[in-house]
């Protein structure tokens, strides 16, 4: 074996063999480029071990499950499959690898399985909603009519959820108008102005992001309906939504503002810009994609709140475009009311409305991906 054929360009190559061989040791550019090692690459062995273990575990459990074990059900099958897989995989890997690597492989496999479970649960929720809602959604009247003078047990060809869609859109629009300026100003305060209270405000904001929506609803009920004599209406819903949306906007925006390079701020100040102008003309535009993310996340949270309209608006079956008087229906409330009847046809309507709600949320996320793909580093 000549030195040139050695797989590694080892530093410990003996130099006394011959001049020609020693010259061969100098790797050419192409050699370096061609042999650049991929640090996280997997070999064929690794992949086959993984696939083989999964397959053999499937076969073993498939054989004994239901025949030898007194068990049934898909859930138990998957759990046993996983356990058998872990056992077989551990044995297979330990044939040719030391213990730390065996542990590493098992941990990686566990991480993968957990991720698959989470993603599968999410996907099943989304897909199941659409499948069950398909019947209602494909009905033209479902999206173009309201439920006035139509009983919940009427067939799908009658009535629709237009009033709930319009109600949701009006409520969320008002909620954005309230919460966006306030949330953004709070974020600017935390990130750009700062001061003695910044830390405590930040802590409270963080705590408020997990404030139960029902408490926001109760609070607005006590203040606006009981205290100020405001009627139960769409506007009350918007205000209560804002209570839950402000912390989300503030917290997410603050993260976006904090990663704006301070060099930009200093450059603006050095050119004589006041802090106000620096914030408005430099910091906020730079962070705009992150701010859009904050807004979209908060909208997604806001349109899904159920307890709030339940408490401070109440349902209606007819179209109401005036947010200041009379109950205003919204999609989550429509879903809940339809569910409570326990009528099969109403449940189908509920799934139809749930699909519309999901389409709105998914639409927001498509916008979000488009925004964050263009400008990296703002998230």
């Amino acid at each position, binding site marked *: 074996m000549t030195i040139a054929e050695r797989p590694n360009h080892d530093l410990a190559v003996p130099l006394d063999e011959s001049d020609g061989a020693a010259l061969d040791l100098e790797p050419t550019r192409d050699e370096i480029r061609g042999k650049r090692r991929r640090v996280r690459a997997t070999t064929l062995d690794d992949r086959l071990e993984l696939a083989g273990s999964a397959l053999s575990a499937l076969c073993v459990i498939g054989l004994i499950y239901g025949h030898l074990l007194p068990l049934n059900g*898909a*859930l*138990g099958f998957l759990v046993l499959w996983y356990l058998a897989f872990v056992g077989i995989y551990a044995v297979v890997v330990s044939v040719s690898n030391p213990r*730390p690597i065996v*542990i590493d492989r098992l*941990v*990686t496999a566990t*991480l*993968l399985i*957990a*991720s698959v*479970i*989470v*993603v599968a649960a999410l996907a*099943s*929720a989304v897909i199941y*909603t659409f499948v069950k809602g398909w019947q209602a959604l494909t009905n033209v009247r479902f999206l173009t009519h309201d439920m006035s003078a139509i009983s919940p047990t009427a067939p799908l060809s009658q009535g629709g959820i237009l009033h709930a869609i319009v109600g949701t859109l009006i409520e969320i629009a008002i909620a954005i108008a309230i919460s966006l300026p*306030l949330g953004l*100003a709070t974020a600017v*305060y935390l990130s750009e*102005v700062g001061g003695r*209270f910044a830390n405590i405000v930040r*802590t*409270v904001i*963080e*705590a*408020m*992001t*997990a*404030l*139960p*929506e*029902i*408490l926001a609803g109760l*609070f607005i009920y*006590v*203040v606006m309906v009981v205290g100020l004599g405001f009627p139960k209406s769409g506007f009350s819903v918007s205000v209560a939504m804002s209570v839950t949306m402000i912390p989300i906007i*503030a917290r997410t925006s603050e993260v976006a503002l904090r990663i704006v390079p301070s060099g930009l701020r200093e450059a603006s100040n050095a050119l004589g810009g*006041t*802090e*106000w*102008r620096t*914030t408005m003309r430099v910091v906020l535009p730079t962070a705009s994609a992150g701010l859009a993310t904050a807004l979209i*996340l908060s909208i997604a*949270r806001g*349109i*899904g*709140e*159920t*307890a709030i309209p*339940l408490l401070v608006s109440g349902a209606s079956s007819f179209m109401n475009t005036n947010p200041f008087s009379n109950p205003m229906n919204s999609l*989550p409330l429509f*879903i*809940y009311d339809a*569910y409570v009847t326990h009528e099969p046809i109403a449940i189908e309507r509920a799934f139809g409305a*749930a699909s519309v709600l*999901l389409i709105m*949320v998914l639409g927001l*996320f498509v916008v979000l*991906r488009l925004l964050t793909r263009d400008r990296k580093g703002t998230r």
Partner: protein
Amino acid sequence: MTTVSVAPSDEDLAPRLLSPGLERSDRIYHGVALGVGLGVLVLMGAIGVFLGIQSIPTLKHYGFGFFTTAQWQPELDHIGIASVLIGTIEVATVAIVVAFPLALLFALFITEVAPRRVKSWLVSSVDLMAAVPSIIYGLWGFFFMMPHAILLSRWLSQYMGWFPLFKVNTDPNAATWQQSSYTSSAFIAGLAVAMMAIPLACAVMRGVFDQAPIAEREAALALSGTRFGVIRTVVLPFGRGGIVGGTMLALGRALGETAAVLIIISPAYGIKFRILEAGQQTISALIAGNFGNATSSQLSALLTAGFVLFLITLGVNTAAAVVIRRSRSGAGTEL
């Protein structure tokens, strides 16, 4: 021609102020920002104060018995939150027990294992999971998950029924088993709530894991550590604050979750620790379910229940926020 006195006055000789104070526009800007920031504080305080004021009549009327009575029978004037408090804690505990490992492992997968292209999709999916309305998880849980989950409930009660929590008041080994004894339980509601707790915990954990110092990671790899070695010696110690804080934030969310619980659980009152058995109630579902047809005194009782929920979630969430904030300062690393 008049001569202007050029002799410098004392004022001119005084050293110039290097920080000349703020422009007027900036003073307004600072004032407004501070005002809004404090306004948010006031808002949070106002929630507590208003709910607190509204609950005074109830507490006067029922006294301490409000916390020890398990029944909710307004017509008999027999009202207390002992059972719903326990129910709330049961549902939240189930949710966290399920959500914590999944969120932790998923967050580790996102930061440590997933290739770059997949990573951004997984991050989006966590955000999406947080954004799916809870009422949709409720419908999904009731119609899709429950038929599968009751098999798990039955299995647990069959083999671990000796443990009081998992006992169900029916014969789990009967040939035709009583399915309705297992439906709409605290356990199943907890599973649905876990779907909302996972993304919250996962997002916080992922954020902290991503900040684990790259130099320490590389040091661990250079010492021929495996991927698990890096996780164990660098990522987890660095992210401890985020793990604890994220889980507590998710716990706060789980304690107050309304719509999904309202759909799945069938209301039942009484001190009850058998989480697999049908029937239980939580504070938030109690409020949402009874709000519509409540008289004014019942309303006050519901507001009091809400006030208790507020105090619990405020405590949990604030503790979580403090833990997360501490961990963000990067304490514990010298790089």
